[in-house]
């Protein structure tokens, strides 16, 4: 199908974008990479009165390191992330995740900020942001605010961003140099949304675990840290049994989605299997 009519605006600055959004009082949508919004418009699931195209705002596309934070402009293309030596070095989990986001031609256009603002339950970038305790910066008529990942993703396709705000930047804490990480997911075909995905970041000291960050994606309506499973690893270490116990704990605690792609029980099963695999790969062990 073809999209319904809309007004088109191409602001040159963030402030101008905010002003246009305010004028439409919640009826305008921001056009970033358009890889999720435009399909919805073509189906007329989304019929915004106006599009605010932020593709030409140069200040929104950058990757910079500032101390312990990697600052990624909201309009940074996923393709840029894929080929960025900075991301590879400072955020290996994101580097691994990005190859699972859609396909090469969708990553050419798709953006980091767009994926986060869209908040598909199974999207990898939101899960990575949650796993790494990142945050986003949003700017609106009332000024700028920082939103932690754990406060951002509220439900499927629902964030705590307001309709008059522009997500301007995504901030990922630099991963410790001695951290191991892995992203395990299961999808029907490469590039499809995952039925279940697990992100794991582990720092080990022998068999002891000194840092565990585990997040699920695709299982529940929003990505979530699996803190009970993390606690088991922190207390009991990284032996075979502790990892199995952590995986079982996570599987027990999730409230899985159930749809025509996979039943809730299947997603629960995948949570256990993939979490175990992810932790083992993150610490360099064979699963």
């Amino acid at each position, binding site marked *: 199908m073809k999209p319904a009519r809309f007004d088109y605006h191409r602001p040159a600055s963030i402030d101008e974008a905010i002003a246009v959004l305010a004028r439409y009082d919640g009826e305008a949508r921001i056009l970033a990479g*358009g890889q999720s919004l*435009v399909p919805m418009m*073509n189906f007329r699931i989304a019929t915004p009165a106006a599009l605010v195209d932020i593709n030409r705002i140069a200040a929104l596309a950058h990757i910079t390191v500032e101390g312990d934070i990697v600052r990624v402009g909201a309009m940074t293309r996923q393709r840029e992330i894929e080929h960025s030596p900075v991301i590879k070095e400072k955020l290996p989990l994101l580097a691994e995740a990005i190859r699972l986001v859609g396909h090469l*031609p969708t990553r*050419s*256009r798709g953006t980091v900020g767009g994926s986060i603002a869209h908040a598909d339950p199974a999207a990898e970038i939101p899960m990575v942001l949650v796993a790494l305790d990142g945050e986003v910066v949003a700017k609106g008529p009332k000024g700028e605010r920082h939103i932690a990942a754990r406060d951002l993703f509220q439900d499927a396709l629902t964030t705590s961003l307001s309709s008059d705000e522009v997500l301007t930047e995504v901030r990922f804490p630099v991963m410790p140099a001695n951290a191991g990480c892995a992203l395990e997911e299961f999808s029907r075909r490469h590039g499809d949304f995952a039925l279940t995905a697990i992100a794991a970041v582990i720092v080990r000291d022998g068999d002891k675990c000194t840092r565990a960050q585990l997040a699920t994606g695709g299982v529940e309506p929003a990505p979530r840290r699996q803190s009970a499973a993390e606690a088991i690893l922190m207390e009991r270490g990284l032996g075979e049994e502790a990892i199995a116990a952590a995986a079982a704990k996570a599987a027990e605690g999730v409230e899985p989605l159930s749809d025509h792609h996979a039943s809730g029980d299947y997603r629960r099963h995948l949570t256990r299997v993939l979490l175990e695999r992810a932790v083992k790969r993150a610490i360099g062990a064979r699963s």
Partner: protein
Amino acid sequence: MSEVEIRLTVNGRSCAGRCEPRKLLVDFLREDLGLTGTHIGCEHGICGACTILVDGAAARSCLLFAVQGEGAELVTVEGLAKENGELNPLQQAFHQHHALQCGFCTPGMLIAATDFLRLNPSPSRDEIREGLSAVLCRCTGYRNIVDAVEAAAPAMRAEKP
């Protein structure tokens, strides 16, 4: 909203047109510029038949509005062959390896493979499969397409500007 003016470069030629902002880039290429080589399949970014190069990177032209193309440099399947009509090595390989049956996905396959081979000039078969997973073909079973891309890789490397 009233029509907007669009100026862009397609296959090295300056082009212009007017359309509503809601007009998809693929429709603009086909209807306004008469470039019907780019095919419209699913219109929601899944099938990849409409893949073109936008400023050098493969992208779905059904997920872009024509107005977004303002000032952009596009390459469509019509831009792959030489001026005299001679097919480029990738196109020749598709021909030689019977990498198409109905031909509907072929423009998308060729463009996706062009971008992929620039990023990965010496790919393995698995990497080719992953690289082309962005485009669906309902006829060939993909085997011949992978064969063609694999066969074309050395010649495409040599052609690289």
